[in-house]
């Protein structure tokens, strides 16, 4: 069996980011329990990220969700080392990113990292294909080859035929597809997304989310995804961290957050969520190994159980990925979920 450490792709240990000149003093004050506001008043420093630790498994989509100013961008910038954290370290495949010099960091970025930005961060003076091929151009790949790779990725994100347009000629959704293509062309190990869809219309946002899910299904990359939209977090995230004032309030799967919110703050977000669409048979079952006549996989949503429960009175068996029965769901359990939804 693989150990947890092997499967961990990206790990952050005790990340701090403080803006301002007296950062050491600010860290100390904050450690002693001073609030962000108190630290700001005492030292003039803003605590952007406060002692955050996290571990992202290979192939996992890890979502950081929080409101504006909670420190999400600062955190992801520390992870990608676009800024240096005030304290703490970031490990990528066991290598300490924070200790690397410019050249080593550059090498890691070329081989392993990519990022998609909220305002796209495209290069307006380059055509779509030259935008998409930028990472390869930096690696000095020959033009024909990099264009070939880039057009394949562009086709994948649905931009076939737009290769020689300029970003300014495209709609917002298409521009972000270019951003996505640019990130994918270098075949990265980890993708950072900093609120990539926030600037888009709701409908286009949904399209993009679906597309990302599709892509992730085949690509299986490690993703760190930032958002301020809880619905988006649930839709995309294998695990979700709720961030507030620079710290993680809670980290867990969508079901965990909904069924057992750690703080009132987390609860507030979960309240409006349509639970039957999020919770699964596995979440609501009673553990029991004897099977009934009917059976569903543990990953089936509660919503999908409703017709089955209406058909008959008897409990429905729940089976795990290997087909073994692990529990049962009955009308009673589902009614409780529905009742707590309001």
């Amino acid at each position, binding site marked *: 069996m693989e150990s947890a450490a092997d499967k961990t792709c990206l790990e952050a240990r005790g990340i701090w980011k403080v803006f301002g000149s007296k950062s050491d003093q600010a860290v100390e004050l904050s450690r002693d329990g001073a609030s962000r506001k108190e630290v700001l008043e005492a030292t003039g420093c803003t605590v952007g990220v406060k002692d955050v630790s996290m571990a992202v498994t290979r192939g996992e989509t890890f979502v950081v969700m929080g409101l504006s100013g909670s420190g999400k961008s600062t955190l992801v910038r520390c992870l990608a080392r*676009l800024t240096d954290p005030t304290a703490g370290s970031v490990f990528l495949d066991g290598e300490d990113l924070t200790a690397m010099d410019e050249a080593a960091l550059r090498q890691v*970025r070329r081989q392993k990292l*990519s990022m998609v930005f*909220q305002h796209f961060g495209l290069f307006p003076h*380059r055509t779509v294909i030259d935008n998409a091929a930028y990472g390869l151009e930096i690696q000095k790949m020959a033009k024909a080859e990099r264009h070939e790779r880039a057009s394949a990725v562009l086709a994948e994100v649905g931009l076939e035929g737009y290769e020689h347009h300029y970003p300014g000629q495209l709609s917002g959704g298409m521009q972000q597809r270019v951003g996505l293509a640019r990130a994918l062309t270098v075949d990265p190990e980890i993708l950072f997304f900093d609120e990539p869809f926030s600037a888009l219309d709701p409908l286009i946002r949904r399209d993009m989310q679906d597309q990302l899910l599709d892509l992730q299904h085949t690509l299986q990359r490690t993703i760190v995804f930032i958002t301020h939209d809880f619905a988006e977090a649930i839709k995309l995230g294998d695990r979700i961290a709720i961030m507030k004032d620079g710290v993680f309030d809670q980290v867990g799967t969508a079901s965990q957050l909904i069924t057992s919110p750690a703080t009132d703050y987390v609860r507030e977000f979960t309240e409006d969520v349509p639970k039957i669409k999020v919770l699964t048979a596995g979440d609501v079952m009673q553990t029991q190994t004897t099977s009934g006549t009917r059976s569903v996989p543990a990953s089936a949503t509660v919503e999908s159980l409703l017709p089955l429960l209406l058909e008959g009175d008897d409990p429905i068996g729940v089976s795990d990925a290997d087909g073994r029965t692990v529990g049962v769901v009955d009308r009673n359990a589902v009614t409780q979920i529905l009742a707590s939804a309001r």
Partner: protein
Amino acid sequence: MTAASPPVGTVGLRSEVRRWLPLAGLVVGALALQLLFSGDDAFPARWDSTFESPIDDAGDWLRSNRSTHPVFTAFFSPLSRGIDAIITGISDFLLWVPWFVVIAAAAAIPARVRMYRAAITVAVALAYTGVIGLWTETMQTLGLMSAAVLLAVVIGLPLGILAALKPGFETILRPFLDIMQTVPAFVYFLPLFMLFGIGNVPGAVATLIYALPPVVRLTTLGIRTVPPQAVEASQMYGARRRQTLTKVQLPMAIPSIITGLSQTIMLALGVVVLATLVGASGLGSPVLQSLNQRRTGRGIAAGLAIMAVAMVLDRIWRSAAERDPLKRHPRNVTLVGLGILAVGALLGRVVGAGSFPEVFDWTLFDPVDDVVTWIRDNLRWLTRPLSDSIVTWLYLPARDLLTDTLAWPVVVFVGAWACWRMKGWGLALFTASSLVLVGLFGLWELSIDTLVQVLLASAMALALALPIGIWAGRRPRIEAALGPILDGLQTVPSLVYIIPAVIFFTVGVVPGIMATVLYAMVPGVRITALGIREVATESLEASRTFGATPRQTLLGVRIPLAAPTIMAGVNQVIMMSLAMVIISGLVGGGGLGFETVVVLKRSRFGLGFEVAVALVALAMILDRFTEAAADRLQPHRDTGL
């Protein structure tokens, strides 16, 4: 005031005293100095020439060593030859290429991005210079200017990039750029003329110095304003600093850099025309010639040619600034066009076409002279008394007050006092010491003379510009109509303004002042109108809801809110006045300007150095003072609601 403050009476008294103390200090100090020094009527002459003769000696040394000393043989002479080679290379090439190919090529640049109106303008404007017989001069001016601008780019671009990437470097660079832009370009001719001798080179270098700051500034600005996300995106793909710079930052800064260049080019044109005074060839010489011969018609012909060049350059740059790739013709069209031009050039040479054929020459405009003479003679009733009263009622009294009536220490003291009140000790000290230095140079009276002319002309220009600007700023349609005219006038080199002034006011101080008023008025009107127009409509509507009359709104809201902008306009008016007053030394304007002309004509190095220092000092004082005044009018954020 808190509750713990002393009784009201004492507070009132104390603050009153504090308020009047500086003014009392001024009066007492001035009176005391006046009594002490009233014996001497001007700056004591016995201190003169302490500086001049050593510098003259140095000048003599320069002159006799120019062909032998290593500083020259190893540095200045090769540099000079190199620059000269670039200039003559460009202008010879432009003259070698058949004229119709030059015109077609120039027009093709806007046409390439489908700006056909601009293409026609360019063609017509260039053709005009040929028809009027000034083709050669025009190409020479283009050559001189292209060389200067090219050098400005070659030097300015790296400086701008460095300043953008290293904030520390920018802090060091900025004061130099400020000074370079504050000092009138004419002043640069003096030292450059000593180093490079007569010809195209000092003119090109002066142009370069003057044109450098906008290139540097806008390059820095352009790189700084590249969205940080684009830079970070580049970093995320593992780009090196240089890769990010060349692939992302510089290309994205190009629009800003092009704006900088178009400013540069317009500034350069004015200086290049002036460079005739240090022996440069080009369109300046016909202007100067017609000025000397008082041939208005020819002056107009040459002036129009300069405006045509300005127009051509402006259109060409604007089309170069057009970054929309969709508007561009496809590459093969461009290649075919280039091919046609090249073939045309060769064929044209084969049949011997080169310079523009002689169609007419500038004597075409000679009939204008008769009209002008007629107008002048019939306007005597107006111009004479106007001229006389300016001299007898304004200029002479002001000059005599400052040089005769008041002892020099009083002038220094009052000047320093005003600077202290406006800006602080730094400027006061600078003003006092530089005024004393100017006195020690023996240039006291000349400098005061120049200062009086500058202030007088500025006051007159403002008296005209402010009402017009306020009037136009409230009427968008009028401003829209006025805009192109003012734009046009701003591209006319200062030298051209002198021609009509000389015609109507003959020689002496008045034509210079009149030319200055005309020249300096333009930015005054523009900036005032801008300030008035840009007052937020909300403030105006707020005022109107309280039932204010238009007059009350204008005086109570519009003008106060526009005051900082208008004051920036005042600064420009004064700086342009200084530049122009110096140039009007050419038509007997007196003061430091006349001295400059003398220096350039007679190669008096010591004097040249002193005059340059005096002018730089005057420019800095006037600029910093008016800038501080504009800052003061800026509403303070912390006292706002």
